[in-house]
């Protein structure tokens, strides 16, 4: 009976306050081997995939990567001058500059066993200077944010978790919105957008940088469906995340520079 009260108190404390974070990260560090062992079958599969490959497939991959590289190099030729332009114009407008963010490549070593929780475990932790609230991206878009850091691993909440929301804007016209997870890996919901707002299927939603958690400009989702019902004040909008949330293995942790006075000065130099 006493035990039940103790557990209830612990639950209430953990749901309402964040004081238990250190305790949790200590236990998490102690239990890290469980994730390592559970990840062995998958890493064996990955190792086999890397070492045992047919020659024709390697050649094919090589060709494809060469083509991709050529295209990307072609596209980035003007990037330097465009970036300088952008910084100059932003300085003229007295707004902060967009800095390029540093990234750290990490590997996913586990997923939360509870299917209603969209959480991942990464193989980098406090020792690699990962911090709580740090954004995470893959090659195609925003993945989520770090919610808990232990010494060698960290835990990430995906943007599709029902408890997660991310401030976004429509890339085409800058209309601001909030994209919320609904508990399905291929869907986000966008609430409270007036039925008359200019938004249509195919619009790209990028992070707006509002709220200060996510850096501005990373793609989040593509609008999948817009349903306007004359009886309702808001349109029903669903979007598909651009990141391949169910297939990723390697992800990038973004070390975002806080946008402040220093970044303006950097841009003026």
């Amino acid at each position, binding site marked *: 009976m006493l035990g*039940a009260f103790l557990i209830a108190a*612990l639950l209430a*404390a953990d749901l309402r306050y964040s004081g238990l974070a250190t305790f949790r990260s200590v236990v998490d560090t102690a239990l890290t081997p469980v994730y390592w062992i559970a990840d062995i079958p998958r890493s064996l599969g990955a190792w086999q995939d890397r070492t045992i490959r047919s020659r024709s497939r390697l050649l094919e991959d090589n060709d494809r990567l060469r083509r991709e590289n050529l295209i990307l190099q072609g596209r980035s030729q003007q990037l330097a001058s465009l970036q300088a332009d952008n910084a100059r114009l932003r300085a003229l407008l007295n707004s902060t500059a967009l800095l390029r963010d540093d990234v750290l490549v990490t590997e996913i070593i*586990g997923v939360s*066993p509870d299917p209603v929780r969209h959480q991942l475990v990464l193989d980098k932790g406090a020792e690699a200077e990962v911090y709580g609230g740090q954004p995470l991206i893959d090659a195609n878009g925003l993945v989520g944010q770090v919610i*808990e850091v232990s010494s060698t691993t960290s835990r990430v909440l995906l943007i599709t978790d029902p408890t997660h929301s991310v401030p976004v804007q429509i890339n085409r016209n800058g209309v601001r919105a909030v994209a919320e997870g609904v508990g399905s890996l291929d869907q986000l919901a966008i609430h409270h957008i007036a039925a008359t707002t200019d938004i249509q299927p195919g619009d790209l939603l990028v992070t707006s940088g509002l709220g200060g958690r996510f850096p501005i400009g990373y793609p989040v989702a593509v609008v999948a469906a817009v349903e306007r019902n004359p009886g309702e004040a808001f349109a029903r909008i669903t979007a598909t995340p651009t990141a391949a949330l169910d297939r990723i293995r390697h992800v990038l942790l973004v070390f975002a520079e806080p946008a402040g006075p220093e970044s303006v000065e950097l841009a003026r130099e």
Partner: protein
Amino acid sequence: MSSWCLRSLRGRSPWNWPVSEPTSGYWVIVVSLLGAMILAVLPLDRGLAWWRPEWILLVLVYWTIALPHRVGMFTAMVIGLGVDVLEGAPLGQNMLALTVVVTLARLMYQRLRVFSLGQQATVVFLLAGLHQLITLWLQGLQGIGAAGFSFLLPALTSALLWPLLMPALRGLRRGYHVN
């Protein structure tokens, strides 16, 4: 003679409460629980994850029935805390669910021992179902949870797994003389 008197004074039947025997093979319990934890976090496809049996609950319930003087509420609380951290659930969620289940299993371990495997599996279904129900309620506090009756799927797979897991764990217990 004197030890027999002591046993009858305590009101316990001699075959399930060995007073004088020393602890042995405790590590088998620890290893089996760690193995259950690894199976519980093994990455599964999202669709399959809904069917994942409650490995930790099964192993805990087995040891509670087999060795109620070794494994009980305290073990359930410690293991539950570990599962909470592994799952990223609020601390106390699995702790409470596992403690309730283990307490119930402890209350009826004498009856469970003489049940057939099928009857035991039915009880395991009820216990795992209760575990899932408590979990669902506590997830509701956070505004998340499964839709419909899909939260009962792990209880079903756990009950189906019991007739295979129980003899395996019993073999371990007898082979390593765990008591």
